[in-house]
């Protein structure tokens, strides 16, 4: 059953239709939130919140077939809300430098969950993922969290499959470049 059919069934009162959508999209929303806030534990909370917000607002979805990209918008909003609330409780950003943003505050927390479970090389790679530009980080996270096809990624991000490949290509090149630079620095 397609996403559009499940949405219509949920709106018609089908008791498990939205649950099926949750199972289908939880991984993608989780990856997206992780890309935004760069914390796996926090991403789980925000992913849950996004899925619940989507359920409560399901009646406002004009095109059920576009559930994925609509859900992505809700998840982005949930992450931004969290980042804003965090920003409100932080010490003035002037202490962090002129270019400081809420997302940058999380640099110190980048990939904390990776430390115990991964060896050094993988840890460096995950840190490099965290430091990618947001739109590249997002597509990498979505891809490796869920093993999605280009078609699925494109649908969720609202871009063409060729653009998905272009971003992944650029991301791979950047990751390799940063890892190589780090290896040279370590060697020195």
């Amino acid at each position: 059953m397609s996403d559009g059919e499940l949405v219509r069934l949920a709106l018609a009162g089908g008791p498990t239709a939205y649950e099926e959508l949750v199972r289908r999209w939880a991984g993608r929303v989780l990856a997206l939130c992780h890309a935004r806030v760069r914390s796996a534990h926090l991403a789980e909370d925000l992913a849950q919140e996004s899925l619940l917000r989507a359920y409560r607002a399901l009646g406002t979805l004009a095109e059920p077939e576009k559930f994925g990209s609509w859900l992505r918008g809700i998840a982005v909003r949930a992450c931004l809300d969290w980042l804003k609330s965090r920003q409100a409780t932080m010490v003035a950003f002037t202490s962090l430098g002129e270019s400081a943003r809420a997302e940058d505050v999380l640099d110190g927390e980048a990939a904390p969950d990776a430390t115990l479970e991964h060896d050094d090389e993988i840890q460096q790679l995950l840190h490099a993922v965290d430091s990618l530009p947001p739109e590249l980080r997002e597509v990498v996270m979505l891809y490796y969290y869920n093993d999605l096809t280009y078609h699925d990624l494109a649908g969720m991000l609202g871009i063409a499959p060729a653009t998905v490949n272009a971003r992944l290509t650029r991301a791979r090149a950047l990751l390799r470049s940063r890892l190589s630079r780090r290896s040279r620095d370590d060697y020195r």
Partner: protein
Amino acid sequence: MNCAEAESLIAEALAGELGEADRAALEEHLAECQSCRQTQVEWQEDDRQLREGFAPWRGASATVAARTIRQLHREQVNSRPATKRKPFAWLPFIVGLSAGFLIALALWRPWAELPMANLPPQAPPNRAPDAPTPQTVLASVIGDVQILPKDTAQWTSVQSGEEVPLGCAIRTQSDGLVEFTCPTGEKARVGTDSQVRINDADEFELVRGQVWAVGCPDRELCVVTDSGTVSTNGGTVNVKQQETGTTVTAATGNAMVRLVSGDESLAQGEELTFSRDKVIHRDRAYSLALITAWMNPLMALKSPDDPELNAHVDALLSHLGASKMSLLSDNELRALGPSCTVPLSRYIRSDEALHDTERRRHAAKLLADLAPISLAGDMVDLLSDDDGEVRAQAAACLKRLTGQDMDCTIDEWRTAPADIRQQAVDQWRTWWQANSFRCQPVPKATAAAEKSTI
């Protein structure tokens, strides 16, 4: 084909998206370009490491889905979400309302009634003030404990007696322990280096570490973990997360563990260890008292008459003596400190203990080391015990507490005839009569306050 185009095709190939025609073109380029061959090897290795690196996180999708669905159920998922209204659906209603209004006007002609100014003012309705939302109470806090209310980003330290809202997270550091009670009576104790979220009065989420959860009669209590959900109807469960898996012990009553692979039921006293989707180990718990020994500092805060404390001491006592768990139980009893001494003293004087010499002597040894001055009267009574070893330990305790021995050595208490010991017994009784008023137990709250002012 240039190298930039080749890189794009290499990326497509890694994703399994490369068409046959492009594959042939790429292979032709790679045959002649060593740089792109190097790129392909490096990206393949990066791809392998990224898949490995993301593996631990990938499993979290199922957890998020399970938690979300559970929350949906709580929000009555079976009720219909807000539906789109059809255009002008309100029109028939308005027409009907208008018709009724016109009919009412025709029948009652309100313009003929008294002017509004002559009507007495309407008294405001009596309303009871809004009842405060019941909160969860932190009954006991030891060490470094913090909370994070829902929708906030700042952890704050807490102390005993504070109230916290449902939905908040609680975390403990390496020296932290906390016991909390929910508005409807469910309670829990959280271990060191742990984090729990109080999703609802009947649902706790164990993020990491260990939790002891006590349900209310005829109500289901759930403990959610990333591997499965534990539930009990009026019982008590201990849930501990470790690297090797999550272990659930049904301490009182039965429990149910819901896994992806199916449900596992636990009878009282059984324990189950599981990981994300499978059961690892299942057995009877050897000693509930030892499994929950981590709670001893919280138990030590309770009154000596507290039923749970007494039951806990009794359980540890049962392991003393010949049991292979004797040493462990001894350590745990000592960790309870003076809190365990009233139950120990009660045990020594019970009929049950008379049939277990070894255990009785062990309990007497513990009293010799732990009993506070408020139990001096009990120790004086034990100076007349039939067992020489118990007499000796009681004398050792009184020596520790008062510095006096009434001219009777420990060996004499152990082996001397009764007539030799009687003079010392009489002296101790006289001492107790004269000094008992100074030896009353200090309430724990007062002791804590006095300690804090030092």
